[in-house]
Structures are given as C-alpha cells and as structure tokens.
C-alpha cells in the first residue's frame, strides 16, 4: 500500500478508527512496554491469546505503556456501547478473570484503575468520542480523574498505551503522518521552521536549546545535511524516550521526517542505547512499515523529496549522549567529545551540517504543525512552552511516566500525581536532571517546572528523570553515587574532569567512611567550581552540580558525617548501627527469621535484640519490621 496523499491517509484513518474505538468484539489491550513485560504482561498476553485463539468475540492486542508503571501490568478492556475499563496489576493468573469480569458487567472493583472518559488523542477533534453516549459505570472513577492522570496533558505521549506500536495504520488512525504530508505538500521549509520557532519548543534532551533556531541554523549551512535522533537516554532513572520508542515509534519518525523536509536532508540516524532491545525492535518494524507505505525512501508521495532512516546502537557509554561524542560514535569511533568552536549544525557527523534532537523533541513536532504554534505556546510558562514528560521514580507511591504542562509545581507532581512518599516516611528531596542536575529540598517544592526556575535553585530540567528521596536516602551518599557514576563515564581526555571528579569522589568516599575532616566541604566546593569552569564538555561542567546542591541544602548531613561520624539516614555503613527499640518491638520474630546472619534473637512476644558482632547492616530487618521497631543509631 503506497500512501501518496492526505486522502490516502484519510481512508486508512476511517478504516482503522473503528477498530480502535468500535471494534465489534471485546478488545483486550495489554500494555507491553519493557517494564510492563518485566512485570508480567507477556505471560498475561500469552495466556489470554491462547485461551481466546480462534474466538470471534474476543481480540487480544498489545499496546505500549500508558504510564502508570506502579500498577503494571495494565490491561484495558472495551467493547462497543460499553465503557472502556482499565484493569491494573493483571498478571497471568488474573487476566482470564479480568476478561470474564468485563463481560459480566464489572464487579471486581479492586482490580480497576478507572474507566475512560475519552480515549481519543488531542489531534482527533474531527472524530466523535466513542464513549460519549455510553452510560458510565457508577462507582468507578474516570481514569482522567484519578489523581495520577488528573493534571496530565498528553502531547508527546499522545498514543502511548492506546495503539499497537507495531501497526502503522493505527498511528495513522490517530492523525499520524497528516502533519508530515501536509507540510510536504502545502508548506515551504522556511514556513515549517517558523512555526516550530514560534511554538517555543525547546530541546527535551537536557540542554533546552530552542528547536526552531537549531533547525534554521542547520538549514543555513551548505552540504549533505543529516538529521539525527538522540535516543541514548543515559540519565539513570529516566525512561521517557524508551517509552515513546516502544509505545509510539512512528511519532519520532514523523518528527524526523518533518525536520528533514524543513532542513533539507536525505539521511537520518537514530542512535539508540543497546540496553533498549525492544525499542530497537519496534523502531525497525516502524521503519519497514513506513518504507513500504512510501513514507520513507525515495520520492516520497511523488514530491521528489527522499529520506531514509538508519538505526545505530550505542554500547553503554553515557558520554555518547553528548552531541559531538554521539556523532563520533555514529562514525564507528571512540565517543570522545570535542570542543565546539564549530557547532555540529555546521560540521557534525561526517563533518557535515547535522541536526541533533532528542526523541521527545521530535515526538512533539507533528502536533505543533497540526494544531499550530499558538496552541503549543499557550501551554506552559513564559520561557518554557508546552509539556514535559517526567519519569517519577524512587521513593514515591505512584511511580510512572507523567506528562504535564510546564509551570506546574514540583509539589503537584510529587504529591498530587505521585501520591507522595510511601510507607509513611518523610520526604527529603527530589533530584532532577540526572548526573548533571541537583537535589531540590522541600522548601522549594512550590517551584514551577520551568527551565529558568530550576536553574535558579542549582538544578536543571534535564531530560526528565525525577527521583524522589526520603528520610532513608543519605544525601552525602547520593552525591558520592553521582560522582562515582561520572568518574566511570568521564571519557578522560581533559584534566579538570578526569582528575577533579576523582579527587572529589575520594573526599566523599572518605566522608562516607567516617574519615571526613574539617575543611572537606570547602575543598569540595573549590574543586567543584574548578571542574565546572575548566572542563571541555557538558559532562564535566555539570558534574559538580549534585555535590554543590547537596552541600547547599543539606549541609548539616555532611556535618554530621564529618563531625559526629553519624549517617542519620542509615546508609553509610560505618556510621550507624541498627538497634531494636524494646518499647516498639512486639516480638513477632519476623526480622529474626529473615536475617541472613542469624544476628537477631529473642523469645516470641518479647522484645528482640541484635547481636552487633554478627550484623552486616544489610537492612533486611529494617525493611521487614512492620512496627518501626528497628532504629538507626
């Protein structure tokens, strides 16, 4: 099937829209991104597929992920004329019962996350809401109103969890490739760049550079221009790019196609980290499908415009996310950054003008073209437009992927959407920006997510990792952790980064082992500012951020490590021990049974004690005690 015109797209949209919304059968969508699969979605899918093989009334399908990772595997079940219901935690042993439950009128309320108020994406205003006239179930909340989803606005994630990522027709059914074909047929490249400029879209990979300006600069330089997608996603704790690639790969291809037409490029590359095998597989399928529809390849839709995309996999080097290192790696070289006296938009990959954008940046482009720059810039704050996807992880109840308009407060994300810290523990900080970012303390939780405002408190927006930390997280250890990460990942070619990080790490390691000295904090600050000033690439210049922000906001924790030789959070092993509080201990014996060292003893129903000689501080008892009887001293 060759697609030559908007009419062709329209035909496919008509045909597949009904499959998405009025399938004529009971349709079961199992969320199958890699974390869903890890949580058991594949087994659930296989079980249901086998049970209903050949059944004309029930169709088992896969989708990407709808973001609420905490409740994975998520399974949506729907049929014509009935509400669409999202079931949660549907593992292999539950899936058949869940389908049965849906067919019998929905009584397992505890298994249900919500019913959908509107399954359409933001581009489908010309399609009727399929559940508009359906009588909703009483006493089942609307998915759009459960706290996790309430404040979300899905632009980049518009299709994740709603379509089968391996099916280009379903992407088209939700207005996919309309923006590209319209741009190709009806717009001038310069016009497209102007729209992207006016939208205020800024790069989502971390730097936040205005996308339209980057495109315009690249288009100005003569030569064989390249369009590159950064899917290296190196920030540990961030996985929105993975989710987009696994749940909606065509949105990235379409964004790249639009960039290619606007900038004037014939060849694109996607640089994906090899820790993401499923993303690679889905991308390969998507590229093949787009090629066979004539949306990628030579002479696209008879316009003379040609564009091909090649996938290249990384090999586990964080620094290869940096633009110049990434391009070196694409050439099959060692991924060392170079000084950017000449920018990559002028001389990048193969020494040619190269436009590099992040996955999420590209995924935002098609809606901007379809709905207009004004619509996009209407979302967000003065300097930060649109939405941003965050991966909300760590010590938070509702872990998952959230897409929110810029300007929403950190508090709303962590507490309203994320549900706060679990197990009645106390919130301590939220880390944004990964190894280049900082730890933001409670007093700044009213801060809006905005490039400038996050920078003012010493952090950055970064690529979207948002790691929540609680009373059990030691901030000195977190600083040590990030430097350890960066020491491993530094490419080692410049002194300030290689030696500076190593020295800072040595000091922090000493502090964590109880050998900190007066003056260490000041030394860290001094070294930090040296590394910031004199490193060559962004890895080095931002490396001290986690250390400097934790010193700024959690200085007393450093001081108790150095002066009192205590780790208040109970992480640095040489600086604390566990003790059982005899008042609180009920003598339930749970801890004693779990202790791998047999260090805990006591009679049933009497307070227990820990033999400090035997204890290796593994923390198993601390996590196991339901009565908070194990104290950190």
């Amino acid at each position, binding site marked *: 099937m060759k697609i030559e015109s908007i009419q062709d797209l329209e035909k496919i949209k008509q045909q597949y829209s009904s499959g998405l919304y009025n399938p004529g059968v009971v349709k079961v969508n199992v969320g199958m991104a*890699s*974390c869903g*699969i*890890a*949580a058991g979605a594949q087994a659930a899918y296989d079980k249901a597929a086998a049970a209903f093989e050949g059944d004309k009334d029930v169709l088992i399908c896969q989708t990407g992920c709808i973001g609420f*990772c*905490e409740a*994975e595997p998520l399974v949506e079940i729907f049929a014509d004329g009935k509400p669409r219901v999202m079931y949660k935690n549907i593992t292999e042993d539950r899936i058949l019962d869940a389908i049965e439950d849906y067919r019998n009128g929905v009584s397992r309320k505890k298994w249900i996350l919500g019913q959908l108020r509107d399954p359409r994406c933001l581009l489908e205003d010309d399609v009727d809401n399929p559940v508009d006239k359906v009588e909703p179930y009483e006493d089942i909340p609307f998915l759009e109103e459960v706290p996790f989803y309430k404040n979300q606005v899905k632009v980049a994630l518009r299709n994740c969890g709603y379509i089968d990522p391996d099916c280009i027709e379903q992407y088209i059914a939700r207005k996919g490739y309309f923006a590209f074909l319209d741009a190709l047929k009806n717009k001038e490249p310069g016009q497209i760049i102007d729209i992207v400029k006016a939208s205020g879209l800024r790069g989502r990979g971390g730097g936040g550079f205005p996308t339209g300006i980057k495109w315009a600069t690249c288009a100005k330089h003569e030569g064989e221009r390249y369009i590159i997608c950064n899917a290296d*996603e*190196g*920030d*540990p*704790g*961030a*996985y929105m790019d*993975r989710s987009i690639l696994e749940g909606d790969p065509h949105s990235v291809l379409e964004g790249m196609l639009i960039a290619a037409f606007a900038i004037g490029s014939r060849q694109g590359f996607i640089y994906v980290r*090899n*820790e*993401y095998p499923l993303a690679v597989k889905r991308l390969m399928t998507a590229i093949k499908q787009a090629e066979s529809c004539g949306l990628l390849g030579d002479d696209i839709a008879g316009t003379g415009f040609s564009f091909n995309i090649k996938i*290249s*996999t*990384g*090999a*586990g*080097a*964080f620094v290869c996310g940096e633009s110049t290192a990434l391009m070196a*790696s*694409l*050439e*099959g*070289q*060692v*991924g060392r950054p170079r000084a950017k006296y000449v920018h990559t938009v002028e001389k990048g990959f193969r020494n040619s003008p190269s436009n590099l954008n992040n996955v999420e940046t590209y995924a935002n482009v098609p809606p901007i073209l379809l709905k207009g720059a004004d619509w996009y810039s209407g979302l967000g704050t003065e300097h930060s437009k649109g939405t941003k996807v965050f*991966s909300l*992880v*760590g*010590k938070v109840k509702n*872990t*998952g992927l959230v897409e929110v308009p810029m300007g929403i407060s950190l508090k709303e994300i962590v507490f309203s959407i994320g549900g706060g810290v679990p197990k009645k523990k106390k919130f301590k900080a939220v*880390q944004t920006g*990964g190894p280049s970012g900082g730890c933001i303390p409670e007093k700044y939780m009213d801060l809006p997510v905005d490039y400038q405002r996050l920078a003012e408190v010493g952090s950055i927006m970064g690529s979207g*990792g948002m*790691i*929540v*930390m609680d009373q059990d*997280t030691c901030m000195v250890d*977190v600083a040590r*952790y*990030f430097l350890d*990460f960066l020491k491993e990942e530094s*490419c080692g070619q410049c002194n300030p980064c290689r030696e500076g990080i190593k020295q800072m790490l040595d000091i922090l390691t000493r502090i964590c082992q109880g050998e900190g000295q007066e003056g260490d904090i000041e030394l860290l600050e001094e070294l930090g500012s040296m590394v910031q000033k004199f490193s060559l690439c962004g890895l080095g210049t931002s490396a001290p951020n986690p250390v400097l922000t934790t010193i700024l906001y959690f200085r007393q924790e450093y001081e108790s490590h150095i002066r009192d030789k205590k780790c208040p959070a109970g992480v640095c092993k040489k600086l604390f021990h566990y003790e059982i509080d005899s008042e609180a201990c009920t003598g339930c014996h749970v801890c004693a049974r*779990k202790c*791998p060292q047999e260090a805990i003893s006591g009679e049933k129903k009497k307070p227990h004690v820990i033999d400090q000689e035997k204890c290796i501080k*593994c*923390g*198993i008892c601390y*996590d196991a005690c339901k009565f908070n009887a194990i104290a950190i001293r």
Partner: protein
Amino acid sequence: MNEASEIQTRQDPEIDFRQLDDIIEGQFGNDKENLIMILQAIQKQYNYLPKPALTYLAAKIKVPVSKIYGVATFYATFSLEPRGRNIVSICLGTACHVRGGDRVRERICETLNITDGQTTPDGRFTLETVRCIGCCSLGPVVKINDDMYGRIGSDEVEKVLNQYE
C-alpha cells in the same frame, strides 16, 4: 588478574569465518562506520570478543587492530574475556540506588563470591553492573540473561540465582 578470570582465560573458541563474513559483510557491508554494531553482533555470537575475530575484522574493514581495541575497551558493553553462561546485570541507576540496589548487589556478590566484572570459577555466572535499564518503576532491578526481576529484595537473591544452571 584475579583468580576467577585467570581460570577463564582458556583457549579461544573455534572461529567460523564464514559466520563472521555473514556479520561483517552480509549484515554490515564491510563498512567501518558500523564497527560498534559489528562488535555487538560478534559478542552476541561468541558471548565475548575473541582475539582472532577482531584480527579478522580489522583486515576486513581496513581498520588497525589497535583502533578496534580502542573502541572495544572504551565502550562498557564489550568484553575481551569469555563470560559466564549466565549474565547477571545489577542495575545501579539512581532510581534503583535509592531503593537499595547496592544492598542487592552486596548480597549477590556475597552469594557468588565475586565482584563486578568477574566470572565464577565454574563459569556459571558473570556479574555486571548497568546504569538503568529503563524499568526504574520496578526498582531495584536485576536482569539475568533476558529475564528481568523487579522489586527484588536482598533476601530473594539466592532463590532467583538458583534458577540458573
């Protein structure tokens, strides 16, 4: 060199050069820009990068062996030593770290009596650490071969490892 890897330094396996041609030429068109992906494919085939394969590769794509070694040692994925039958990858990404990933690592190291990058003397396990495999919501995460274990507690480590021969 530690004891565990010394025992591992056994003879390089038989290299089937036709198979290498399939990778280098067939899949990747003898193109040196594809070096990293070629190395990945070779590692997939042999579980590590055998020396004779790299020498052969150097000649095929006309890149000095020293440069190939440079690339193979720069990127964390590659191993120049044979690895165990089962690859245990412990995630030490930030999300897993704050949820106790380090304690899980300690338990695994104790149970197997090896540290990161080492292989057990019987060749049963190789231990690796990774920085985020994108399943942070399930942290702490351990991956053994292609199987993912999420929300793993340090007290569950032994049971999980025992499933692998």
